[in-house]
């Protein structure tokens, strides 16, 4: 079933049963319906780049860079700081992904001040700063614990 992994004996590596075949067929039918709607109601040539483009950008750019950073942190940072830094990276990454659409203010319109009506740059910086502050506190606490001669338990 999964590639390259030795079977544990608990998982049947053989043919899928009726249930799984049925489930997969339902999935294929749903996909086919969606594909039909794409073709019937949209121009597939306009939709396709927005389906494949993000996959390419993620797989070739974002993932290698982010995983490279994680790997680097894993190598360079002292152990007591690794978890807080990783969590901070995840949270800041999530906030950045969501913030991108409002930070640009691309959808703002002069005739509608109720839309995009915050200072997003300030809000984004404050959110990242808060995250990093919490991570820093965790690092300091972890460091004290690690370096303390009287280790708990």
């Amino acid at each position: 079933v999964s590639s390259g992994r030795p079977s544990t004996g608990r998982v049947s590596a053989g043919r899928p049963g009726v249930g799984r075949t049925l489930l997969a067929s339902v999935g294929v039918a749903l996909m086919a319906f969606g594909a039909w709607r794409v073709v019937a109601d949209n121009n597939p040539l306009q939709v396709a780049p927005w389906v494949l483009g993000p996959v390419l950008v993620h797989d070739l750019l974002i993932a290698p860079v982010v995983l490279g950073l994680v790997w680097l942190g894993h190598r360079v940072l002292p152990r007591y700081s690794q978890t807080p830094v990783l969590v901070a990276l995840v949270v800041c990454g999530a906030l950045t992904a969501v913030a991108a659409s409002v930070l640009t203010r691309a959808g703002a319109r002069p005739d509608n001040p109720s839309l995009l009506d915050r200072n997003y740059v300030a809000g984004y910086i404050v959110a990242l700063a808060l995250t990093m502050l919490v991570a820093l506190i965790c690092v300091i606490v972890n460091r004290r614990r690690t370096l303390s001669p009287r280790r708990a338990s």
Partner: protein
Amino acid sequence: VSDRRQLSLPPREEELVGHLHDERVAARLGLALGIAFGICFLTGLISHVIQQPPWWFTWPTRPVNLYRVTQGVHVITGIASIPLLLAKLATVYPRLFTWPPVRSAPHALERLSVLVLVGAAFFELITGLLNIAHWYPWGFFFPTAHYAVAWIAVGAIVVHIAVKLPVIRRALGDRVDGDDDGHDSADGPSRRLFLAGVGAGVVAVVVATAGATVPWLRRVSVLAVRTGEGPQGVPVNKSAVAAGVVDTASDPGFRLEVAGPDAVISLSLDDLRTMPQTTADLPIACVEGWSASATWRGVRVRDLVQRVGGSPDQDVRFVSLQESGLYGQSLLPALHARDDLSLLALEINGEVLDLDHGYPCRLITASRPGVLQTKWVRRIEVVA
């Protein structure tokens, strides 16, 4: 000692953030992502069928906040899925380099289905996120494309679950922080802490955006597309300028036409003001997930229907002064048309409607999407 629970590895993969590339982490993230996408899909489907109802479908009038909740949940689960999807992809990233790339026809199909799954999932999250920020850098029409690709994404998820079911069962049955090789805690952040970190990311993005629909989060939702402020305390989606109705809507000679089986009548704004007025506290709940409550005052739709000889079993069409775009008119099902709380509103929060809120008169009903709460109404037709 090799950890036999590692997913299939390209060279030196164990060295590269070993503990995150683990089927137990992947399965838990997948479960959370599956639930989030499932809820997002169902709430999206609800919004779709309300706007394009098939013959068998009726949407209730109560509770008045029903659509506000379903659509708020739609956008919130979509936003929550963004960190979940990125984390899930990070845990399975090494599988992209499985060698040989294709082993058999079924394996090729499985890999193709994963490509479709990831592409469709990205498409849904990115287009949804940009749509709520009114950013349209693409050529397609957002609602139809977002709807069509949603079926592809959900179908691909179902296929993926079918393919991976034995692995999912095994992985979810095991403790996520179980140390079968004896030294996992010595090798960087543990899996449990990584999952906790992703959970923190989910909480962060939800808190940062949910204030658009959850009033008590407004102050802290620093990335919400709207603060909830606007003319007369209520946000606006399409302004009078954008709809091109400034001149026609502010014309003092404005007359509302009401057409029914017995008569076609023409009412001035003063005529409407002399009819019995009803006050209702109703939310305006946008398809984009934001919502805000307001106190509306105006004439009951059913009173207008009655004046032209319509029955409570008839649907009613509302036509706007707005001539461009798809949302220049809406069809109000009979169930809503005869509802006590369905108003042709003249006032909001104690003031005459702002031009941007639909002056001289706009439809406001319980539990329906904002795009169907037609503004700048010029004609009402009882539909046979």
